[in-house]
């Protein structure tokens, strides 16, 4: 009898049932070939379910609190309230771990591994971006020769919200010469009375060009007035505090900014701790139409300089920008005309040296990916105003996408020592990561 049973186990219904089970269990696997729309729906449903559960618990918690407050004897714990309502803060929901994610399949879904990609602490990581800038030059320049090609700088940025009251922005420059902190400041966004305050290392708001990051320029280089007045980088930055206030009125956007810095930068030098750099700016802006607008500002900066302890430099500037960008064709056509005039009064041993410089620039977008610019430069040298450099540039830029640019610039410079340089500059700029938009 036992041998008959053994035989039926091996040959009868059992193997057929086994095969049937395998076939049936294979079917759901095939049907699970991902269908993106259904997958999105499922994820949406899961998310909604979680939110609903969270809301239910929150509601229960709030009702418990209400009940507790209404009774005069707080010691009498509300017994009717559900057990999980006891804490005042709603319990965190249990996240259903999506199939395929780390930890799926464990009992109730196990937690992500420390150091893993899904760790929730990474959700607070700042926006990070790296913008590379490779420049080169061909042609003859005996006064300020440039290498045939060089990696100018990578701007690395870290930007994020600090807390409900402030955000922080860090901009580092990585170049073959080293790393520099260009800007690193906290911005208090929740101050009253129309105030905005920044504290940290930053570019003083002198004119327009000093605060423009290299990747936001429409030329390979910076205007002569910037390199003559601010130092060879064409910008100056310092550690300090900047407070700006909206001056509300019915006619235009009016903003006044006052800044105080430590006094050491490529323009100024502080010989004593109380020798600071002061800067101020008044900016007015008005829409002329949906497409056109005008932006005018005036700036001043004062601080001691490298001549000596009792010598100071004052900078003053006026800037004007006209923009035209028809809204319905905004991605194809725009025009910008900008000029900045600057004056420098530099205290020197033989008296004050007064220098003047300016640039006038026009940018035009020819097509979705093509931009052209023309710029005129004139700049006296702050230390020796009788020496003046002049220049003219024509630039064409191609944008394969929003995230990279290829640029060619013809630059003719007539230096003060009667030397003329004709150069062709080129530039490749490319960015990865999330870089926030800059101030208009």
């Amino acid at each position, binding site marked *: 009898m036992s041998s008959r049973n053994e035989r039926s186990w091996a040959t009868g219904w059992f193997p057929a049932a086994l095969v049937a089970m395998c076939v049936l269990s294979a079917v759901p696997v095939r049907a699970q070939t991902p269908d993106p729309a259904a997958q*999105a729906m499922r994820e949406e449903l899961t998310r909604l379910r979680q939110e609903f559960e969270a809301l239910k618990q929150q509601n229960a918690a709030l009702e418990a609190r209400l009940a507790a407050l209404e009774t005069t004897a707080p010691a009498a714990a509300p017994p009717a309230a559900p057990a999980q309502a006891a804490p005042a803060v709603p319990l965190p929901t249990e996240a259903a771990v999506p199939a395929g994610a780390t930890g799926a399949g464990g009992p109730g879904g196990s937690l992500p591994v420390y150091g893993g990609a899904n760790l929730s602490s990474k959700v607070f990581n700042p926006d990070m971006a790296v913008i590379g800038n490779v420049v080169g030059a061909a042609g003859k320049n005996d006064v300020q020769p440039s290498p045939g090609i060089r990696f100018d700088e990578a701007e690395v940025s870290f930007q994020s919200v600090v807390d409900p009251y402030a955000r922080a922005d860090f901009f580092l420059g990585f170049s073959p010469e080293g790393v520099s902190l260009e800007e690193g400041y906290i911005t208090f966004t929740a101050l009253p009375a129309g105030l905005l305050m920044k504290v940290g290392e930053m570019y003083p708001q002198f004119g327009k060009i000093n605060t423009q990051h290299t990747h936001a320029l429409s030329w390979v280089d910076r205007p002569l007035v910037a390199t003559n007045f601010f130092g060879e980088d064409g910008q100056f930055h310092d550690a300090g505090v900047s407070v700006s206030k909206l001056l509300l009125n019915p006619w235009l956007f009016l903003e006044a900014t006052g800044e105080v810095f430590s006094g050491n930068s490529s323009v100024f030098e502080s010989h004593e701790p109380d020798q600071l750099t002061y800067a101020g700016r008044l900016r007015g802006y008005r829409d002329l139409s949906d497409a056109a607008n005008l932006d005018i500002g005036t700036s001043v900066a004062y601080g001691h300089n490298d001549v000596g302890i009792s010598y100071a430099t004052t900078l003053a500037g006026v800037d004007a920008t006209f923009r035209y960008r028809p809204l319905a064709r905004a991605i194809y056509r725009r025009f910008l005309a900008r000029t900045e005039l600057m004056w420098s009064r530099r205290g020197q041993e033989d008296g004050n040296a007064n220098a003047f410089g300016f640039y006038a620039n026009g940018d035009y977008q020819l097509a979705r990916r093509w931009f052209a610019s023309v710029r005129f430069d004139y700049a006296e040298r702050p230390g020796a105003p009788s020496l003046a450099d002049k220049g003219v540039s024509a630039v064409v830029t191609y944008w394969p996408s929003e*995230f990279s640019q290829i640029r060619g610039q013809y630059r003719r410079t007539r230096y003060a020592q009667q030397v003329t340089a004709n150069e062709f500059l080129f530039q490749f700029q490319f960015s990865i990561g999330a870089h926030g938009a*800059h101030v*208009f």
Partner: protein
Amino acid sequence: MMAMAPPARAAIKVVATTEDLAALVQEVGGDRVQVEALARGYQDPHFVEPKPSFILKLHGADLLVVVGRELEIGWLPPLITQARNSRIQQSGDRYLDASLTAHILEIPTGEITRAMGDVHPLGNPHYWLSPDNGRLIARAIQKKLSEIAPTDAAYFAQRYADFDRRLADAEKRWTAAMAPYKGLKVVTYHRSWPNFTDGFGLDVIGYVEPKPGIPPSPSHTLELIQEMKRQQVKIIIMEPYFDSKTPDAIARDTGARVIVLAPSVGGQKEATDYFKLFEYDVNTLITAIKETGAK
């Protein structure tokens, strides 16, 4: 800190990033709100200039309503930072992201890189183009307005109910009008129509852009023309802020028709509110379908 309710009869000043949100705020808020939109309906909402005049609007706002899903990421954050208005900061109680309760399509799964073009990692942000989502957005607005002005909660509730009813009636008409063309194959310029096409049963078989945010290229255009001929596609849907040169060339080659629909309230002059937006789009579509004999 308690949220200060505005005095009894002062209208709530609302700033919305797009005219669609502004239209929905107007529907729910009625005369208790004064609403303005930053972006115009006929401009590309990804590329709005962060003008200082917008800072002034945000500074005086009691409520900011945004589309979210990174649609405004290229221009709105510096405006909010400079607005000097603590309540409309993203963490504040007067910042409303309309996408949080809406049905979002095309949420990518798997790896995302910019090799795929200008992709939206949080899903397609043009979600207002669906009456269902219109309802969900309006509901979120109603809740937020009721928080700001609790004494008017009943008014907002009544206005929402009225909007809901009118929308349900209108939706029946639009669905009925589009029903004969269910499954119709179309091509769109940019990937900004999934909610609309899903809702009205259209099948988007290709895009004029080779990838989102990348302008048309000759090789992709050729492929698209061949595909359109193979599938007998007669309709190309375009937004008013794109250049019609390539779509026109495609239309000439395939015998298709280019129609410029309104992607937003204000996107065409007839689309003056949320209802007229769909009226214009549905009617223009149906007229073009009939004239081209598309199936």
